[in-house]
Structures are given as structure tokens and as C-alpha cells.
């Protein structure tokens, strides 16, 4: 059986989640490998969520937030940008493939872009293969 990646998407309520909604209502096709979790803001994302997702078997983690400057809470995504940049560096230095973690700014009107990013990211993870480093073996 071919490898179907499991991707965790964490999306901000105001932009990316609404964008995903738009992709749905406009009947855009995108891979069903992504499981989207809604949070109120990208700065709500605790870096431990990401480490934990990888441990519990996610092959990739995609984070979506509002474009910088467009945050519903004015500055949330600006904090998140710094924090997630550090998360990325930590994953990289620990030996994780950097391609498994991605942050994208997708606004509520960019349904197309959401579908496109998910397609692209799923392909990327498919090429990388199953994530075995962090995964806790049962």
C-alpha cells in the first residue's frame, strides 16, 4: 500500500480556518491527508503541540495564520512568527527534517491558496516518507 501521510494542520480561526472553509464552499479539491485543528490565533500555538504531534505520529505539521499586519488581535501573529521560527530551528538542530514543519500566512479570502499549499505540502511529505524519528513506537 502506498504511503499516505498524516498531516496536522493548525489554523487560526480568523484567516486560515475561514480560508479553508472558503476552499470547501467553493468545492476546491485538496488532499484529505490534512486534519485541521482550529485555534483562535496562531500565537495560541504552544510549541509543545508541534513536538507532541510528531511524537504521536504526525508526518508533517502545517501552521496557518493571518498575514502579518492582519491579525484579528493586532499583534498575535507577530509574536507567533518569532516563536515558530525558533521552533523550526530547534527541530532542525535536533535532527528532524526541516521540511516536515511549515508555517504559512493564508488569509480568509485565499481559499485557492489554502488548497494549493495543502497539495504542495502533502506532496513534499510524501517524498520525505513516514516520520519515524519522533514517533513513539507502540
Amino acid at each position, binding site marked *: 500500500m502506498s504511503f499516505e501521510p498524516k498531516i496536522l494542520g493548525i489554523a487560526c480561526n480568523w484567516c486560515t480556518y475561514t480560508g479553508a472553509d472558503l476552499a470547501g464552499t467553493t468545492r476546491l479539491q485538496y488532499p484529505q491527508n490534512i486534519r485541521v485543528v482550529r485555534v483562535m490565533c496562531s500565537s495560541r500555538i504552544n*510549541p*509543545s503541540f508541534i*513536538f*507532541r504531534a510528531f*511524537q504521536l505520529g504526525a508526518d508533517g505539521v502545517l501552521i496557518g495564520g493571518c498575514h*502579518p*499586519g492582519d491579525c484579528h488581535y493586532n*499583534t498575535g501573529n*507577530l*509574536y507567533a*512568527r*518569532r*516563536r*515558530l*521560527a*525558533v*521552533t*523550526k*530551528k*530547534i527541530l*532542525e*538542530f*535536533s*535532527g*528532524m*527534517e526541516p521540511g516536515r514543519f511549515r*508555517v504559512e*500566512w493564508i488569509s480568509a479570502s485565499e481559499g485557492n491558496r489554502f488548497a494549493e499549499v495543502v497539495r504542495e505540502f502533502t506532496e513534499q511529505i510524501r517524498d520525505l516518507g513516514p516520520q519515524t*524519528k*519522533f514517533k*513513539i513506537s507502540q
Partner: protein
Amino acid sequence: MAISFEQIEQHLKTEALKLLESGKVILVLAYGRGYDANHPMPYVAKHPSDVDNIVFNEYCTANLARYLTRYPRRTKIAIAVKAADSRAVVQLIQEDKVCREDLVVLGIPVYGMKNFKTGEVIDSKTTGGLYNPVLYDILLGEEVHGQPVSSPYDVLAAYEAMDKEERWAFWQRELGRCIRCYACRKACPMCYCDPCFIDQNKPKWGEKSPESPGNLMYHLTRFHHLAGRCIDCGECSRACPVDIPLYLFHKKVAKDCEEMFGQAAGMSIGDKPVLVNFRVDDSDKILE
């Protein structure tokens, strides 16, 4: 110019006695004798008569800023700090954990400190060219000049050159040895959360048994929590009973933070820690 540890000890005793007798502070955080002269311990002098027990020698590596957050606010404290420790004090002031007004900082300009386990000189590993405290009220001795100044990040080169598989194997091996005694957390001046995330049961962030998955979760999250705050004293690695080189990862994160955000931890009271701050013109490139 060689450092005279006896002289520093004398200075320290004199200043501590003055401060305690005048009632300016109610306690002095310094070093006392452990079970032998090579194993000094943190020591709290509360009465002028305690001052005789204060020692200072090349093995006094402990970071006393660790103990500042244990006392209630408005406690007047005098603290003996070396270069890295003074950055910890600055960082704690930035985070509003202690008040500048409550502290009398006794700065110790020093080099040639040694690891008490191995006897190895730790300058190049952790203090990285910083020999004089960045913040002090009273300087014990003269400022150090003319010592070789290296980048604190030089020791990283060998690890950055590894490819990701090698790095993964390296950290698996190192973190796999962790026995989860939490000495790193106890020794760290910046680890003051109560409760620590790893002690929480709801949500349970990671496994608590000393096995690889839980160790990885604990250490990676700890590195993240100390991002932009770690002041590079290296005390976590010295406190570690199984000698995991935790300082390497902390240094790497500190280096990345400095490169991305242009600010090192604990250098000036006016700064804000990088992760509770932002710039509108931060580049999106940092996420690539």
C-alpha cells in the same frame, strides 16, 4: 595579570560584612565551603557572624541568580555574580521577577573558573569572551582586560557541520542517557515555573519515565522555553549527573535568536526578551 581568588574572597567578605551590619540587605548570596575546598556550595549569609564562612575559589561556578526568585519581593538581597551570572540577574529584572532596587549586585570580574568535576577551565566553553559583569553596584577587584576574546558560539562549529542524521543520532544518544533528575532545571536561574510543564498531568505534555520519547519532549521544550533567555552560564551541563552537553543546544538556540532578532539575552535592563517582543519588520525569511 593573574586572578587572585584570595583577594576576591577578602573583598567579598568585607563588602558582605558592611552590607549586613548596616542593614542595607538582610541576606547575602555567596559561596560557602562544601565537603572539601574543591566543592564550594551556594551559601546564604544572614548575620554578620556568617560572613567568615564565605569562600571564593576557581570552583565557585554555581549561578547564584538561581536563588533570587525564591525570596519574596521587597527582600533586600546582596548577590555575588560573575560575568554570566550578572546576565542572569539582568534577565530576571527584564522579566520582572526581581526588582533592581532590592538588589545589591557584587560583581566579580574573573576568568579561569574550573569545572569541579573535571578540573577543566570553562572560559571558552561558556563565558565566551565576557569576563566582566554587565551589571554591578560594587565591583570586587579590577576589570579584566586583555584576555583572549572568542565568540561564545565557536564550540558549535563541529555540531553544525554534522548532517541531520548524525545530529539526530548524537542527540538520541545524549538525551537517551537522561535519568530525569531535573538537576538542569534546578540549577537554571531562568527555570522558575511552578509547576514545570513536565510535572503537569492535565494536559500531560510528555512521558515522565526516563526513556527516549519523554526525554526528547522534556529537553526540546526546555530548550524552547529558554530561547532568547538562556544566558549561557553552562550550569545545566555541570549540574547534570550524566554529563549531557545541554549547553550546546542552548548555545545553538541562543545563536539563532541573536542572528534572527539581533539581541543577546541579559545584556541590558532596558531590553525585552526576544520572544515576548516583536518587530513589525521581522522578515518572513526566518520561517523558511
